[in-house]
């Protein structure tokens, strides 16, 4: 109903629509740039502290990544946490003193190794260990995550729907366990086990800090101060914007069509020349890149990587964000990621304090978090299965469906005495010829 109303408001001419679109982007840009400056974002006990906004953006990036796999290609992935983990650990390895393991730092490990590499890092030169520039680490994390996506995808993507979901779930459970136990691999300490790795270096400004003093901005410092969430927010927004742009371009191109074809009918897609394995692996790899980049950034803002962060619930939360927002729609994925993260980080606690002070009770919404998320998902499936911001595609298909029904009460299929194509049986084998023994 609401979307119908919005559509009526839209201008009819192509030029009008374009102007509306561009002004929409400009308004969004101004809003995002100004968001950290609003007074309420400075109040850490308020409904929207800056740290929550930064996390919302990180989770929106994760949701964008999973949206490629689940929304575009239609592959149910319940192990997205794996890519988050690889990104975060890549940052932890390459941006901390973990690489310098001698004497007491080596902990339980019998073998000692020590790397001492600095490259345009925010860390002081006197610190030992591997300290690379954040921007280089982001690229490496993206590559590591993409390779992890291919490595996990290659054996699992032969499976379909529910089976794929189960195996990815398995991978999402196994990997954190592996990292938990890799504090001692034949005497080498690779992950520091349950103790985690930290502190991770802050985000540096890379080549930007080499620029001379700029008008408006001034001289860019070499790195971001740890309390400067405003600049961190802008950094993650750059990644989100890049990923939104890439998602939209890919969706409308050759690969995006192949993804959608696989989502619609895998068998028909392969018979139309779409290589199933390669196309699905691309979806995994591209989706994993967002996980890797988001993971690396996350490591720098929280400062310490702990294996307990990488739990199954993470995969579920991101999946909820995609479903809540509207599968297959990048803006929906962002909205879903932001809403879910806000409730998760701040909203529930803030609401319970408000509620309790008004009603004089002692009620903790946060402890009912998963129950509430579950309830919201059930309600969504009942009343708005297409999500908050559904993909244009499903919106239009639905609208046309309604028109067909209005025009023709019998429906096409009934009229000509065969099943409408929607109700056709799916999957291999196409038709077994089973008349005869």
């Amino acid at each position, binding site marked *: 109903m609401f979307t119908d109303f919005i559509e009526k408001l839209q201008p009819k001419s192509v030029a009008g629509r374009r102007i509306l679109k561009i002004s929409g982007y400009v308004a969004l840009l101004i809003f995002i740039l100004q968001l950290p400056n609003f007074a309420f974002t400075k109040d850490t006990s308020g409904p929207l502290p800056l740290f929550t906004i930064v996390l919302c953006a990180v989770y929106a990036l994760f949701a964008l990544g999973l949206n490629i796999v689940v929304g575009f290609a239609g592959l149910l992935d319940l192990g997205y946490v794996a890519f988050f983990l690889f990104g975060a650990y890549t940052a932890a390895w390459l941006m901390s003193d973990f690489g310098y393991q001698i004497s007491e730092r080596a902990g339980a490990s019998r073998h000692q190794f020590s790397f001492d590499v600095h490259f345009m890092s925010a860390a002081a030169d006197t610190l030992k260990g591997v300290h690379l520039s954040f921007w280089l680490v982001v690229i490496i994390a993206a590559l590591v995550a993409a390779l992890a996506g291919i490595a996990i995808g290659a054996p699992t993507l032969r499976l379909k729907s529910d089976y794929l979901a189960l195996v990815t779930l398995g991978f999402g459970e196994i990997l954190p366990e592996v990292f938990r136990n890799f504090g001692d691999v034949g005497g080498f300490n690779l992950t520091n086990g349950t103790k985690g790795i930290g502190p991770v270096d802050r985000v540096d400004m890379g080549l930007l800090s080499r620029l001379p003093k700029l008008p408006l901005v001034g001289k860019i410092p070499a790195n971001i101060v740890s309390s400067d969430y405003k600049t961190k927010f802008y950094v993650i927004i750059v990644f989100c914007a890049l990923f939104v*742009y*890439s998602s939209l*371009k*890919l969706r409308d*191109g*050759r*690969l*995006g*069509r*192949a993804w*959608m*074809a696989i989502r*619609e*009918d895998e*068998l*028909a*897609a*392969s*018979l*139309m*020349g*779409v*290589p*199933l394995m390669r196309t699905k692996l*691309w979806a995994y790899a*591209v989706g994993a890149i967002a996980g890797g980049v988001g993971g690396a950034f996350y490591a720098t803002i929280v400062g310490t990587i702990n294996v307990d962060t990488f739990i199954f619930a993470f995969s579920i939360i991101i999946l909820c964000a995609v479903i809540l927002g509207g599968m297959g729609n990048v803006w929906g994925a962002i909205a879903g990621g932001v809403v879910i993260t806000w409730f998760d980080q701040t909203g529930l606690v803030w609401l319970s304090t408000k509620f309790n002070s008004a009603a004089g009770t002692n009620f903790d919404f946060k402890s009912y978090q998963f129950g509430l998320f579950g309830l919201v998902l059930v309600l969504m499936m009942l009343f708005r299965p297409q999500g908050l911001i559904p993909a244009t*595609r*499903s919106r*239009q*298909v639905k609208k*046309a*469906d309604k028109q*067909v029904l209005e025009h023709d009460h019998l429906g*096409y*299929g009934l009229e*000509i005495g*065969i*099943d409408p*194509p*929607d109700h*056709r*049986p799916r999957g*291999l*084998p*196409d*038709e*077994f*010829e*089973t*008349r*005869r*023994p």
Partner: protein
Amino acid sequence: MTELLLDARKVRVEFGGLVAVNDVDFNIPTGSIVALIGPNGAGKTTFFNVLTGLYTPTRGGVHFDGVSIVGVAPHKIAASGVARTFQNIRLFGAMTAAENVMVAMHPHLKSSVVSTILRTPRQRHEEKEARATATELLKFVGIGGTEEEFAKNLPYGDQRRLEVARALALRPKLLLLDEPTAGMNPQESATFTTFVHRVRDEKGVTVLLIEHDMKVVMGVSERITVLEYGAKIAEGTPAEIRSDQRVIEAYLGKSATEEVA
């Protein structure tokens, strides 16, 4: 001797103890229109599935354009020039007609992930051309102007046409039509005969069809192969098949032939 586009020898498909296709020899001369007929469950669609790579034959060989396609992945066979439609329409429902057609151009398009994100001039040019080709193909099959319609919202007959347009986008050498006139009224079936000839003559495509409507089969095909219980029981021109004793028995039963005689 005419060149053979497809040459299948002693093809046998078994599902457990069930023999779906029983040592069938079958070939298609380049540029011809050939039909495969037989009662329900005779193994026609199974045979199609062998030709498109969905099933690997238990025994026997299939050569397409001189190359063996046994055990080759379906998308590779498709890219090498075998396109098909489906008995129960299998379009990409939530994609537009133009997009459906463009999916099948996948093997012929070159743009990569990087060039798509960067929108290189070559990628944009390629997309534009692909779109133009799609429009042209839709017009060719007689549903021009439906580019932006979602496949699942098209009327049934148009969906059948769209399937053909999509198959043609693969630039096939061989087009397999699985019961193309199912669900069509007699008038539509009649126009279909001329349509198949147009496809062959204008697109230079060899056509193999499975069909139950005998009027269509006799009108369109140059050669007919008849399967029954997975085995080939007859092969020849429409006139020969019409008078073949075993074919009449297969279709009408033994007593019926006796009555006719």
